[in-house]
């Protein structure tokens, strides 16, 4: 039986897996101790739980438990990685390379770095959403201290060539940081094989709780350090002060354990489901997938339905929760900067919907979404002057649109 609305916005956040909730529960009440309390059982229990979570996480991403720094989420991890490296390695240089399709938590942190004297290169991406490795190499200077390129994109799901990027970084003696928020728990991420020096991720994108995330900081080959961005008790090897969020950390650990155990099964199921959704929606005339379909997370698809405006479309599909690249609600009226970076025209960017499936999405829900979207697109096109012009063979570019 279907329950409405149907949640298909799992790149924004995922529901908590009941198994994760179960693991967390004792740490809110009975086992409420402070993991930093060394002198009684309450503290020991909490510390033990945190250490266990570290192992669960380390096992998922193939690192040592000591290399996990707990944070409040991926935004904090992004800030800590970039600002922390910029400060710690100031004597080596002040240049950072990133890409235009990064999450705002990376881009805005880089803008901050520019304000405090750093230099940042923002690499463009091609129509597939991928950076050009040659451009990356050419952007490197003797002042470059960090390359920050995301693993999988939040809007289009495109996966960057992480191993090739890290090989370039390693060859040039530059640290490589990746915001892997959308990738960890969804696809195999191995910091050793992938050559990652720092990596941000969070709990709530992989069926864990909100308000907890981690920064992986490599301890060997090379030993990486970041300057703390908050002063306090010197928790997390001095890199992130603040009493540990024990229930959240237990939840993140459990989410990682489940992800590792279920990944193969989840991926096979989700990618088949996503492909079916995509294939069906592409039967709609003038619809286009945004970004690479080859290098992509298994559970995401981003589709533009030409001549229909995304926000209007979302209102028409109110029984399903999705997101749009249209920014009709923002004062600037600017559509998604990620889609624009892929070279989409503004009107196509305004016409996009992002579908993010989850472990809990059912075939029935996908069936419903398919017919619901088809109906809404047809209805809105009936109402769209652009669709009428297209059908009459009028080239929309030949029209002088009023500046607005």
């Amino acid at each position, binding site marked *: 039986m279907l329950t409405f609305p149907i949640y298909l916005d799992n790149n924004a956040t995922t529901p908590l897996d009941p198994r994760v909730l179960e693991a967390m529960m004792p740490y809110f009440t009975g086992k409420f101790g402070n993991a930093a309390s060394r002198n009684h059982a309450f503290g020991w229990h909490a510390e033990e739980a945190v250490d266990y979570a570290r192992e669960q996480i380390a096992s998922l991403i193939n690192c040592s438990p000591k290399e996990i720094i707990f944070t409040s989420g991926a935004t904090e991890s992004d800030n800590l990685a970039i600002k922390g490296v910029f400060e710690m390695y100031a004597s080596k240089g002040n240049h950072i390379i990133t890409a235009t399709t990064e999450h705002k938590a990376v881009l805005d942190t880089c803008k901050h770095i520019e304000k405090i004297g750093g230099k940042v290169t923002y690499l463009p991406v091609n129509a597939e959403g991928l950076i050009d490795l040659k451009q990356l190499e050419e952007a490197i200077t003797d002042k470059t201290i960090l390359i920050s390129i995301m693993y999988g994109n939040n809007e289009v799901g495109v996966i960057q060539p992480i191993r090739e990027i890290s090989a370039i970084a390693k060859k040039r003696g530059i640290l490589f940081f990746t915001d892997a928020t959308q990738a960890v728990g969804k696809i195999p991420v191995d910091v050793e094989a992938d050559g990652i020096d720092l990596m941000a991720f969070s709990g709530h994108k992989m069926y864990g709780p909100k308000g907890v995330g981690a920064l992986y900081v490599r301890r060997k080959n090379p030993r990486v350090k970041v300057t703390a961005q908050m002063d306090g008790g010197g928790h997390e090897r001095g890199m992130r002060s603040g009493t540990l969020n024990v229930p959240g950390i237990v939840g993140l650990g459990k989410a990682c354990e489940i992800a590792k155990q279920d990944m193969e099964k989840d991926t096979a199921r989700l990618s088949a489901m996503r492909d079916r959704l995509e294939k069906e929606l592409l039967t709609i005339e003038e619809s286009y997938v945004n970004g690479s379909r080859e290098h992509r997370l298994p559970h995401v698809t981003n589709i533009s339905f030409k001549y229909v405006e995304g926000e209007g479309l979302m209102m028409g599909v109110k029984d399903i929760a999705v997101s749009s690249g249209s920014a009709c609600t923002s004062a600037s009226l600017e559509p998604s900067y990620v889609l624009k970076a892929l070279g989409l025209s503004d009107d196509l960017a305004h016409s996009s919907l992002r579908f993010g499936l989850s472990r809990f999405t059912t075939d029935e829900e996908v069936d419903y979404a398919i017919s619901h979207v088809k109906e809404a697109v047809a209805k809105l096109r009936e109402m769209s002057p652009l669709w009428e012009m297209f059908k009459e063979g009028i080239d929309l570019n030949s029209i002088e649109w009023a500046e*607005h």
Partner: protein
Amino acid sequence: MAYSDKVIDHYNNPRNVGTLDKAKNNVGTGLVGAPECGDVMRLQIEVDENQVITDAKFKTFGCGSAIASSSLATEWLKGKTVDEALAIDNMDIVEELALPPVKIHCSVLAEDAIKSAINDYRVKNGLPALEMAKSHH
């Protein structure tokens, strides 16, 4: 952002969607907005010999508020004289549909569409175009 009941009603049951014959002399067509901005409205009026608007149709590419603004505009236009139609102010639309501040531009666009349709009608009938009082953004 939650939409008002009136916006939802116009979105679900848009009034007067359609096309009038723009070749006819007594039909005025206004096409405003731009695809890049995420909203385009086409509003058409048919005027009788007494300067009364006997029919109005719209098609809109845009968000729910843009669709509702143009749908409401066609409702208001029918039965009005051209001069009365010129008096429709975007803030009347904002009030009627309870549009939030970020959606005021939708009402401005609807007002522009009305004026643009009237101007098209005027020019077709040998009258000078009126100055557009407001410009958006």
